[in-house]
């Protein structure tokens, strides 16, 4: 689905990503883990079109998408969320979702002026879909709140909700669990699993919560110091000496990243 081929990127003297290649298979929930500063978010930004790579290619279902801007990737079915939730703080939760659907005729100013009744009719349908998503995520009770007033965890759910308003094929989730309490985390994981199962979304997930990764992801790619050092299922990786070293330093014992 997403083929990452020999991507490198440096910031000044810092080689943030070095010659990384792997493939996110269609229908999978692929994990991407590694200690802080491993280059995961940089790689995500490159795949999502927010940052150009120094070298290497990205392909989406065989098509070269390297360097395309974010909004064009969206229309090709590649959608992302952010590590820090990026809500539209002065818009309501519903409006946050209603913004997203592509090809809204009301996004043309002339159509809004000359056919506003048609635009309102179309918007009513978009509102219905937004309310469905809010019910699915069980945050319907805050639908008319300004998104800036939500809790951190609710904002994470809202980010995920925005991806559900698209016809996405592949979704990049940057730390969906960060700052989310345990109860909400279970809900979030369940939502991701259902989207994967019922709607056929492919996911690539950066996450530090190893329980969440173990529950959701197979396979898992491990990065450290800008390089890909291992991949496989979580059970295997826990016993991989290189992974343990990356997380805990040489000679450490115990389970890697069990916290």
């Amino acid at each position, binding site marked *: 689905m997403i083929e990452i081929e020999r991507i490198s990127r440096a910031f000044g003297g810092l080689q943030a990503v070095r010659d990384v290649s792997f493939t996110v298979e269609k229908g999978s929930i692929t994990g991407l883990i590694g200690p802080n500063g491993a280059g995961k978010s940089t790689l995500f930004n490159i795949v999502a079109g927010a940052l150009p790579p120094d070298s290497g290619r990205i392909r989406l279902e065989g098509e070269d998408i390297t360097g395309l801007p*974010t909004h064009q990737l969206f229309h090709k079915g590649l959608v992302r969320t952010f590590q820090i939730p990026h809500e539209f*703080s002065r818009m309501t939760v519903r409006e946050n979702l209603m913004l997203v659907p592509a090809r809204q005729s009301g996004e043309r*100013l002339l159509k*809004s002026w000359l056919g506003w009744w048609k635009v309102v009719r179309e918007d009513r349908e978009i509102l219905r879909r937004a309310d469905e998503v809010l019910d699915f995520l069980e945050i319907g009770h805050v639908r008319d709140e300004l998104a800036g007033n939500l809790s951190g965890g609710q904002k994470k759910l809202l980010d995920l909700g925005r991806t559900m308003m698209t016809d996405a094929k592949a979704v990049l989730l940057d730390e969906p669990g960060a700052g989310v309490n345990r109860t909400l985390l279970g809900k979030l994981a369940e939502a991701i699993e259902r989207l994967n199962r019922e709607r056929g979304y492919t996911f690539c997930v950066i996450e530090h919560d190893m329980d969440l990764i173990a529950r959701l992801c197979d396979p898992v790619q491990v990065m450290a110091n800008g390089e890909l050092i291992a991949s496989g299922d979580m059970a295997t990786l826990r016993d991989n000496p290189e992974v343990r070293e990356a997380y805990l330093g040489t000679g450490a014992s115990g389970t890697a990243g069990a916290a």
Partner: protein
Amino acid sequence: MELAGLGAYLLFFLNLVGIYAIMALGLNMQWGMTGQFNIGIAGFFAVGAYTTAILTTGPADGWLGGFDLPFLLGLAGSIIVCVPVAWVVGRITANLRTDYLAIATIGIAEIIRLFFLNEGWLSNGTRGIPGIQKPLDLGNGGYLLIVLAFVAITYLLVEVARRSPWGRVLRAIRDNEPATAAAGKDIARFRLEAFVVGSCIMALGGGLYAHFVGFVSPEAFRPLYGTFLVWVMLIAGGSGNNLGAMLGALVVWIIWSSTEVLADLVPTALIGSESAFRVFLIGVLLQVILVSRPQGLLPERRPPMPGERRRS
């Protein structure tokens, strides 16, 4: 002032309020909805005023003119000429944000003013273009009806735009650009559209202004009258709220006019600096508003959801 004089003054006053209300609506599309910090309003105001002046006046003596076109064609010309001007300015400044956009636009507005000042073949330079007629030989009273009709039309168009999905994208850009791009929206396109449409509304205000005062010269398009007052109106009225923009035009123009009365009361020592004193008062007013009621007289309200009826 006797009653007849007061009535005449009121008509004069309301015409200007209407014209400024239109410009405040244009600025609201750029700043209130999109967050574009345009302080070059005077430039588009001038383009609109000069265009209709050139198109509708009779025989010209040494400047471009003599087309003698009707009023409505002159106004249409104001808007049409503003489209390419605003488009070019918008493209140049497309990637600039907030303070950088402000610096660029104020510079461009001055360039436009100096262009009209120096290109005498086009604009008659410092002497300006006289003899711009009101349509149908109307007086200030009749002309007020025309201005108010344009205010109403502009308000309707801007308000429909604000409530539409197009306006929703603009507000999203204002809140968070990366997330708007991640939602598949072409930010550059929306920013440019809002800039051009908002600027054309300012040009319409300029056109109405030219026919109202009957005379245009570069002096009228200094940043104070052309730009600064419009900003104070929008901030005072409530940026993001179209009714607020119009209310702000009324309130600020009342205060601005009443400072004219104050000018008669200043001590003799200060005679000659009345105009500076008026500007100072407006500056103080802006500070007071920003500190005590930053959301303005009528704060922004979210547009109603489709099918929603509001009680209030």
